[in-house]
């Protein structure tokens, strides 16, 4: 009896601890409960597997970019060996993040091949025309936007395509325009030769508005060695008709000549500006990308989930209703069938709920919708153990044993089948947790934790509570433990 009292105090202690934990360390809610966006980034590698180092490198670049973007409370984690998950809580638009993160942002400085001046001029002219078409297309009012208008653009586009000897493959007009512009930028880049100066030589990037017009430019600050390389390169082409091109991801974003006055020393000072008709947003995106450095491997955004905050709070409320009504249904059923024993199981279920939630905040487990369904489902499974025990107790009572004896041997005899029975569920949870996606992991974690805790609450807590109950004379009548109508047999 003494030992049981020790357990009782231990359980009360655990309960207090749980309440304390829950008050001081609130539960972490997943995005489907608090609202926000989640992006899954897939690292693309043509051959072989992504190594740990590569994953780390990509992770750190993305992390820098996210920080420089200034999104608040974002959370970046790796998933599997080749995916990253970025969570943006609240009403932050994933669009900007997706544009900044998706690019490799490999910055190169290239010098023009000799004897390509005429080719370059033609391409530059074509680029101006394409840009104009894009401009016209995007600024057109909806009312203006009819077949006539798009036919005009279509005709101009065809002309350029013929000159370039390249046919765009996109299905819609806007896509075609963008595709051709990219093609031209790539063709321009191909007229230039690589140098050993690249984005790796940068120590900072910034942006500012150009003085003459409303366009923005991006400022590059080189490291010491980068500054030297830059001076060397500019010196080599100063005063010639060769241009210096700044290439981003294989597309030329700006080409400039170096004046004769730099022929002796090159451009020194360790900085450069890129002015390529940037809008404020474009300049900021490029700035963030350059600050974070280029990605060692390209990535692709393969999944985006966005949940509004209102929907999130609705989801919490709905889950709460579901959990509470589930508990009530189960409670009524148990008390109806097992009377005092049922009441004991309800008490241990309540304990079970507290312990579970406390453990979530301790580990911590981020609570998501599938996670909550795992928790709610595990309520049913937690009761399962109690039912096994109570059935045994009933049998013992029918056999004419005393209450105390029946309870003891009921718990003892049910022990092994309970532990055994839960193993298969735990096996499934383990597999789900190891192989599943993020979404599925939440379910596996809560169900698995639930099954483990239920072993403690249904075996130990219910036994302790029951032992405590029967210290009262009035609660020691056998008929309180058997269904009313069946006491006769």
């Amino acid at each position, binding site marked *: 009896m003494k030992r049981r009292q020790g357990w009782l105090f231990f359980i009360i202690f655990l309960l207090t601890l749980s309440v304390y934990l829950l008050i001081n360390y609130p539960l972490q809610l997943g995005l489907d409960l608090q609202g926000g966006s989640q992006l899954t980034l897939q690292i693309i590698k043509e051959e072989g597997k992504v190594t740990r180092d590569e994953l780390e490198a990509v992770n750190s670049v993305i992390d820098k970019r996210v920080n420089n973007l200034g999104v608040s409370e974002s959370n970046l984690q790796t998933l599997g060996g080749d995916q990253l998950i970025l969570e943006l809580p609240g009403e932050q638009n994933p669009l900007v993040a997706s544009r900044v993160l998706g690019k490799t942002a490999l910055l190169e400085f290239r010098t023009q091949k000799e004897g390509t001046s005429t080719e370059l001029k033609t391409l530059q002219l074509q680029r101006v025309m394409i840009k104009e078409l894009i401009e016209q297309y995007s600024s057109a009012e909806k009312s203006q936007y009819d077949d006539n208008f798009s036919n005009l653009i279509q005709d101009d586009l065809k002309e350029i395509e013929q000159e370039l000897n390249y046919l765009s493959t996109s299905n819609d007009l806007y*896509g075609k325009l963008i595709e051709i512009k990219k093609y031209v930028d790539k063709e321009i880049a191909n007229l230039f030769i690589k140098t050993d100066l690249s984005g790796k030589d940068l120590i900072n990037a910034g942006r500012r508005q150009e003085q003459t017009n409303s366009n923005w430019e991006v400022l590059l600050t080189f490291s010491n060695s980068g500054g030297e390389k830059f001076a060397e390169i500019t010196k080599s082409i100063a005063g010639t008709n060769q241009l210096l091109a700044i290439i981003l991801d294989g597309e030329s974003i700006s080409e400039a000549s170096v004046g004769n006055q730099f022929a002796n020393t090159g451009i020194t000072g360790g900085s450069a500006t890129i002015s390529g008709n940037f809008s404020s947003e474009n300049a900021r995106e490029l700035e963030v990308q350059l600050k974070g450095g280029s990605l060692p491997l390209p990535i692709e*955004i393969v999944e985006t989930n966005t949940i509004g905050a209102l929907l999130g709070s609705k989801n919490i409320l709905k889950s709460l209703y579901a959990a509470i009504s589930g508990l009530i249904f189960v409670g009524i059923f148990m008390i109806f069938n097992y009377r005092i024993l049922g009441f004991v199981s309800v008490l241990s279920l309540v304990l079970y709920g507290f312990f579970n939630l406390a453990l979530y905040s301790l580990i911590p487990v981020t609570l998501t919708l599938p996670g909550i369904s795992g928790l709610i489902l595990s309520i049913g499974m937690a009761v399962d153990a109690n039912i096994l025990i109570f059935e045994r107790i009933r049998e013992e009572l029918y056999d004419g044993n005393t209450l105390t004896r029946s309870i003891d041997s009921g718990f003892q005899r049910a022990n092994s089948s309970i532990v055994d029975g839960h193993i298969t569920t735990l*096996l499934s949870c383990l597999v789900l947790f190891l192989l599943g996606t993020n979404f599925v992991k939440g379910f596996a974690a809560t169900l698995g934790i639930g099954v483990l805790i239920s072993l403690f609450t249904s075996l130990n807590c219910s036994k302790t509570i029951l032992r405590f109950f029967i210290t009262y004379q009035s609660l020691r009548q056998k008929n309180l433990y058997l269904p009313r109508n069946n006491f006769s047999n």
Partner: protein
Amino acid sequence: MKYNLELIKNKRKIVGFSTVLILLSLLGILYSTFNTSYKKPINLGMDFVGGNELRIERVCDEECSNFSPDSVLEKLKEISKNKNVLNNIKLQFQNNNKLISIRTPYLSIEESNNLINNLDNIVGPLNYESKDSRLIGPKLGKRLLTNCVTSLLVSLFAISLYITIRFDKKYALFALLALFHDLVIVFGIFSWLGIILSVEVNSLFAVSLLTIAGYSVNDTVVIFDRIRENLKSKKGGYNENIQLSVNESFRRTTFTSITTLFPLLSIILFGSYSLFWFSLSLSLGIIVGSYSSILLAPSLLLKE
């Protein structure tokens, strides 16, 4: 309260019933594979094939004005610059025109944002706080599918291994037979749901199958335990002892199923819509699982 299920008398009926259920399920799976537009054993949802799913509510004063989906699509086509996005689009109004739900093939975030903006112009204002948008690339979809299938196979293997170690060959065989019986029937029901109601399955469906597997074996293990115990300790014939064991564990098995069904029922009634089909397939699995544990698996153990 003693139960008296006449297992020995009804063996043929039970086995026959299960056979019919399995055949019906297989029929659904075959029909779905060869005779539907998607040509798959089950209607795979966007988790597995990629795509874009959007649900968003409109802000209305009292009642939301009525729009026909076709007229909205028509207008969308008029004002969208990127018409490509509108191929294969499905648009529905729900909840008295309040809720718009849209399915399209995979879109980029930018395209999806444009679509929402255009929608706002036509049926707006929209309540962006109620937005639920999922974009899944086709590559990820394929990966998720392989992932789910591997998870299922690995855990079925693990469970089979556990059962074979724990029981004699005969018991293990029948417990596994009952397990596959449950999984095939739930799978078949969803094949039929896909054919008739175009219900799609997502990764949560795979999760439910895994959970059902764990649960169904758990139930069977308890009954088989009881059979083993009774065969050792009680006199009486082999078949009679099996029947006795089933009747002794009947209450426990049905009660456990009921207490597990209650919470699931609560999720179906009160929970978020994204958990509806998940809870339903779990519930079906638990019902079929209890049936196979109580009636089918022990019947198979009976000697002629």
